[in-house]
């Protein structure tokens, strides 16, 4: 009997300590990224449907370069790729190498429950995960690009003392559910060690589309619009890149997603001018 009580109280104690988060006073709020200012926008000429690919990768992942080849083969102006460094295991940086892990990327990684890389999601559809060489992602992207866009989306970015971003959104059909806009900066041509399929380490491997920072909150900012067909809004925001980001190698990536399901409706990217 005594053992049973000890067992029960032990289980309850473990649950009590481990299954109740305590947020310290002073930490009730956290930085949520740049604020988007919304104004009335203009209609978008020739809106197109693009595909948003979120790829989870890591420098100690021998199969990741193969996935990179697959995605490089289909990358064009209608396919927006964001590569996220897995926060643990094969995502750990080699000693002395740059750490490409980001808070935003880690939050997204945990949201998808990534436990093996390479892995990818198309338009944040959690029901289909692409793994390994990702040969089947090509047909999925083709299908996604064939859909009629629900929103038109364009982005531009200019650099002064900070990077100013302008996003134009037009509702091409009425959407009843709330939408969010997420903006991120990705960088190409980052050279650091990568484990290759033959288990050698390539010290000069060029990593592309690497997520460097989620500019808005991790889950985006609410789009202030009624969501009625034809409505157009313009969002402006800015951020100051850190010194380790080479803006000349960067793209600004933006995507519009459903606030509830987090499915991406459309995306766009641009270079920083």
């Amino acid at each position, binding site marked *: *009997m005594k053992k*049973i*009580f000890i067992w*029960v109280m032990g*289980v*309850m104690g473990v*649950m*009590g300590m*481990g*299954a*109740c*988060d*305590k*947020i310290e*006073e002073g*930490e*009730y*709020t*956290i*930085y*949520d*990224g*740049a*604020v988007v200012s919304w104004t009335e926008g203009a209609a978008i000429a020739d809106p197109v449907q693009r595909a948003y690919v979120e790829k989870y990768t890591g420098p100690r992942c021998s199969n990741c370069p193969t996935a990179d080849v697959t995605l490089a083969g289909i990358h064009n102006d209608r396919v927006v790729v964001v590569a996220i460094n897995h926060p643990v295991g094969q995502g750990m940086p080699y000693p002395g190498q740059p750490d490409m892990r980001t808070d935003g990327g880690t*939050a997204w990684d945990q*949201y998808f429950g990534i436990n093996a890389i390479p892995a990818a999601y198309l338009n944040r559809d959690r*029901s289909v995960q692409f793994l390994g060489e990702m040969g089947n992602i090509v047909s999925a992207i083709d299908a996604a690009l064939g859909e009629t866009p629900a929103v038109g989306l364009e982005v531009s970015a200019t650099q002064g003392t900070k990077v100013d971003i302008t996003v134009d959104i037009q509702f091409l059909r009425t959407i009843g559910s709330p939408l*969010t806009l997420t903006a991120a900066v990705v960088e190409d041509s980052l050279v650091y060690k990568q484990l290759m399929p033959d288990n050698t380490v390539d010290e000069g491997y060029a990593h592309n589309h690497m997520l460097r920072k989620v500019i808005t*909150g*991790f*889950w*985006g900012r*609410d789009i202030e619009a009624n969501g009625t067909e034809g409505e157009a809004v313009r969002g402006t925001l800015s951020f100051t890149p850190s010194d380790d980001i080479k803006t000349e190698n960067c793209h600004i990536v933006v995507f519009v997603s459903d606030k509830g*399901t987090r499915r991406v409706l459309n995306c766009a990217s641009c270079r920083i001018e």
Partner: protein
Amino acid sequence: MVDNIMKRKRIVMIAVAACITMAAQGQGLLGGHVTGNVQLDGQMSSADSTIGAQDVPEKLLMNARADILYTNGDFSAGLRFEMYQNPLLGFDARYKGQGLANYFVAYNGERLSVTLGNFYEQFGSGMILRAYEDRYLGLDNALMGLNVQYRPVEGVTLKALAGKQRIFWDYGEGLVRGVDAEVNLGSLVKAIGESRFRATVGAGFVSKYEEDETVPSAANAEMRLNLPLNVGAASVRADIGYGNWSLQGEYVRKGQDPSAMNGYVYHPGEALLLGLTYSQRGLSASLQAKRIVNMGFKSVRSQSGEMLYINYLPAITKNHTYAFLSMYPYATQVNGEQGLQGDVMYKIKKGTLLGGKYGMDVHVNSSVVVGLDTTVTGGAGTEGYEVKGGLGETLYGDVSVEMAKKLSKNVKATVTYAYQVFNPVVENEPGGLHHNNIVVADVSWKVSKKHSLRIEGEWMGSDSHYDANDPEHNDRRAGDWVMGLVEWNIGTHWFVSASDQWAYNDGRGNYYNLSVGYTKGATRLQVGYGKQREGLLCIGGVCRTVPASNGLTFGLTTSF
């Protein structure tokens, strides 16, 4: 995703139904048996501007359900089919649809019970966990998952569960986990079991997990709330008795749980429920006290309304049954309240001056609920407020005296007087306190072996008044009211009733109802026609809005 759930449900429904059918057909082989019940409620309503009833475009609304339970020794399996085409007035439109709403398989052994699928459960008084359904409230927060109970020795019950809660035709994203232990000391310790002392103690812990989301800070647009993903609630409780006395108590503590219900503040939750009762032949008395602070506990933080509550906060006001006594029901204030309730039932003996030939039952009940005494310190993303030891604003109070006396062999009369104070803020409505005096007379007359008659008269005088153009006074319950009801039971099968509620002085509305019913065995059919006043239906402090309606209603229940 919902489509996938519906497909899975269909597969499970077919499989469970096939098992039950095969088992039922082979009762001799398997030795099991099938029981069930069916309920159907329908409503037709047309517009009536005098009571605020809206037209029903579908003309006919219908709620229906069928529960089927197969049991075979320690094994049982069940399912429930529900249909809302379309939901009756006052039921959430998101119920619209039909399908398998509940299914489970269970093993109930002497020491071990295991349920897989949908299940209902309660820890203690329910203040940290109560998964239950109330079809009249349109409430069902059944858990879908695993529920295990283990009884290692007599008097000891250990429970562990995990699952997700039902929300209409889907399940909420929040994951609920819980453990509970209860020990009856009288069963464990022989000396206690043989004494006049009784004691049961228990403790439980419930935790919910929910993914992170962006909730902006009200104070700074660039900040968002740092939300706890795991929120826990723990309770300790005891039920101690000696002779005619018993004392029940439960204390609950809940971790930070910023949510839509509490305005996303981080103040921890706390609740205390105490009850002292005394009973002897012809007399029983009880005193209850309750204090709750920020105890709304849902598995989805952004959810408002009555769905997805993990816990239940017991009401501390009497659940009245007479029409005017229940016209202003009390809705539990999950963000904070404190109250007292006293209840005395006394039977005046036969042969005394008041008792007469048959004796007389006297029932006195009184309750008062007030808010918390708080100082607001901030909004979303802060502690929210400080709680002090004083009393907040009056939310509800009532005192009722009920005397029931058999006047002759065939006539019984009950007279009730009540005084109520009601604050519309408990329904999130503006306006000042309503003060009501209510008198009810209820006479039952057994006319013959096959016929009985019940006549009820009610009156309510109120200091409230109705004004359709004033938001503080557009409550259609306002004003003075009278009501009459006649109910005639014909034989063992038929009954007919007619009633009318009429508001006068500063009130508005005339609500008549005619009803006919037929009962045979376990089957009951009822048809009614009349007007329904808008208001709240509350059961145990949990409420749903009942809109005004005007037209035909019908209901059928049967069991097998």
